[in-house]
């Protein structure tokens, strides 16, 4: 362990070459599956690549999906540094979105510069609030956070369905959705923002939330690695006994880390609701909370790594949907298989190649 840490070239290998090698393996296996289905793997990957990055619109969609994954990836990573496995980013994002949505619905007449910060704060507060109970139960009662956060995902979804079906629904329609937010509360889209400075960009759901996600990444890096509080968090995560000996309360760290984690997950609601859909609708996190776990794993819980792997997953989502659009034999389930293989190789099996690769390197 310490020997590996000593060699900088090995760290570099671990951070860059290893994920790439895993990605290549996953894609090779996916190629085999596509071949078995009867399509050309090369053509399929070319389609996926151009579908994800080939045009401004494609890029816009890729980054739009990536925005969700950055927020949830950061949420998982912050909890992970405190030694907590937060499986509840999905539910926290769901409730966080509710907070942002309620502000947009209720205060839609206020000017944007007032509504936007309020909505951001509401998303963070609601997300954090949803993480508070599992955090408290873990810190004070020792209830395992994995179990409680999973259960809170179901509670979030039951609560949201009840709210949307019975209370928030726009009258006179089948679909449990609220009315549209007032246009003044929408987060400006990337093409509008760029048009203002004279650049043209194809319309896509990409919006200001992407910039917020990048800012959140920088903030997480600052907090975790450059503040005393972040240090306490990492110490408690590595060794609770040592933390207690050093005068850090692990219980307090647990609660604080989960609050930050939930607040970050709430950011997804900004992107989905204020940025893209402009209404509250059922199930808008769409599994991004769970993808966030893979994103954090692959990005090694480091903000830079998370942004990169979030973009990779955004590309898989967007490129995958292009793929199933253009290749009739490749249906959505095949795309899920490809995404699953990438998660499997880059997340769960990440250490399989570690030994052979480092041996190869040292030779």
């Amino acid at each position, binding site marked *: 362990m310490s020997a590996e840490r000593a060699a900088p070239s090995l760290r570099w290998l671990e951070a860059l070459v290893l994920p790439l090698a895993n990605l290549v393996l996953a894609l090779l296996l996916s190629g085999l599956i596509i071949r078995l289905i009867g399509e050309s793997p090369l053509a399929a990957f070319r389609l996926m690549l151009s579908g994800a990055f080939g045009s401004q619109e494609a890029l816009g*969609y890729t980054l*739009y*999906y990536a925005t969700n994954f950055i927020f949830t990836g950061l949420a998982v990573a912050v909890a992970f540094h405190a030694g907590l496995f937060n499986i509840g980013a999905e539910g926290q994002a769901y409730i966080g979105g509710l907070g942002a949505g309620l502000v947009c619905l209720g205060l839609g007449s206020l000017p944007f510069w007032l509504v936007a910060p309020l909505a951001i704060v509401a998303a963070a507060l609601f997300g954090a609030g949803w993480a508070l109970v599992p955090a408290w139960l873990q810190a004070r009662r020792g209830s395992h956070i994995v179990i409680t956060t999973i259960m809170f995902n*179901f509670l979030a*979804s*039951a609560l*949201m*369905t*009840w709210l949307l*079906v019975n209370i928030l*629904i726009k*009258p*006179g*329609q*089948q*679909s*449990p*959705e609220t009315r549209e937010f007032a246009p003044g509360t929408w987060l400006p889209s990337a093409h509008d923002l760029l048009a203002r400075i004279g650049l043209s960009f194809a319309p896509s*759901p990409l919006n200001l939330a992407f910039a917020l996600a990048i800012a959140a990444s920088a903030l997480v890096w600052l907090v975790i690695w450059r503040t005393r509080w972040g240090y306490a968090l990492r110490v408690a995560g590595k060794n609770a006994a040592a933390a207690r000996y050093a005068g850090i309360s692990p219980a307090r760290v647990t609660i604080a880390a989960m609050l930050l984690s939930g607040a970050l997950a709430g950011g997804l609601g900004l992107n989905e609701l204020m940025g*893209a*859909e402009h*209404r509250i*609708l*059922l*199930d*808008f996190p*769409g*599994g991004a909370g769970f993808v966030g776990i893979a994103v954090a794993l692959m990005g090694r819980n480091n903000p830079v790594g998370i942004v990169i792997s979030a973009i990779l997953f955004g590309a898989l*989502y967007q490129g995958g*949907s292009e793929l*199933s*659009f253009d290749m*009739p034999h490749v*249906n*959505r389930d095949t*795309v*899920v298989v490809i995404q699953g293989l990438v998660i499997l190789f880059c997340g769960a099996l990440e250490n399989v190649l570690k030994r052979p690769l480092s041996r190869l390197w040292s030779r």
Partner: protein
Amino acid sequence: MRIILLFLLSAACALAEGIKPAIVYDFGGKFDRSFNQSASEGVARFTRETGIAFRDFEVTNATQRVQVMRQFARHGYNFIVAVGFSQASAVEQVAPEFPDVRFVIIDGNVDLPNVESVNFREQESSFLCGMAAALSSKTGKIGFVGGMDIPLIRKFALGYEAGARHVNPKIEVFENMTGSTPSAWNDPTRGAELAKSQFGRGADVVFHAAGGTGMGVMQAAQDAGLLSIGCDSNQDYIHPGSVLTSALKRVDVAVYRAATAARNGSWVHGHVTFGLAEDGVGYSLDEYNRAILTPAIEKRLEDAKRDIVAGRVAVPEYRE
């Protein structure tokens, strides 16, 4: 010669250009043995009869709806069917951008000059199924298992209960929803448990409006030697002798009819509602349930059907 060939070719192209159809299925997917699949059967029939193939897409997240509709429209598809109420807002967004493309939304309402909104009066078929259940029940207790708790499913429940009370005002109706997430459409284990608990309370007929979850409901009825009622597609064949009847929702007819109209040039925008009068909803009767849906029950149902169509019996509708 070449000119004639060219002419023929261009004529063929012009004919083929008449309609270039595409369909967007919702989360359930093309083969959900229920609602989406019924739409795909309409597509299959249209393709069989005309040789014109539909392009299709099954969405996996909400953003894809707008994206894929736009993509179809841009690729020259001029007739796009969106299946399911959750696609209404996507149609609302995309349709104005492509005024020359004809859109059809199933189970939703969109007021635009290039959109046809198709809805069904599910409460009418549910009403008849409620009657059939009440007429077949020996215990005076019947059950309902819904999928996800949304207005559409409450509409089924309300019609069912009203139908049952129409026959027997004192009947007891147990009502359960499977869940509040989309996974409630595909949870046969839970469906079976809910049905069993209703049987435990004395129900002897149970109606499901729960998509894939309903498979478990019908299995539980079969295992207990009791009766179930299928939904959307004709499901009588799944457990012959145990599935009393099925509440039919002819999405296939709606899709086929709209596509045919678009091809003949007789397609118009606006709102269409399919009920008993239009044969868009109904109950099933075939060799699989002939033995249990007796002629006496059938006569009552046919009478009620006539009364509903004529407006002599009012079926309550779920409103917000």
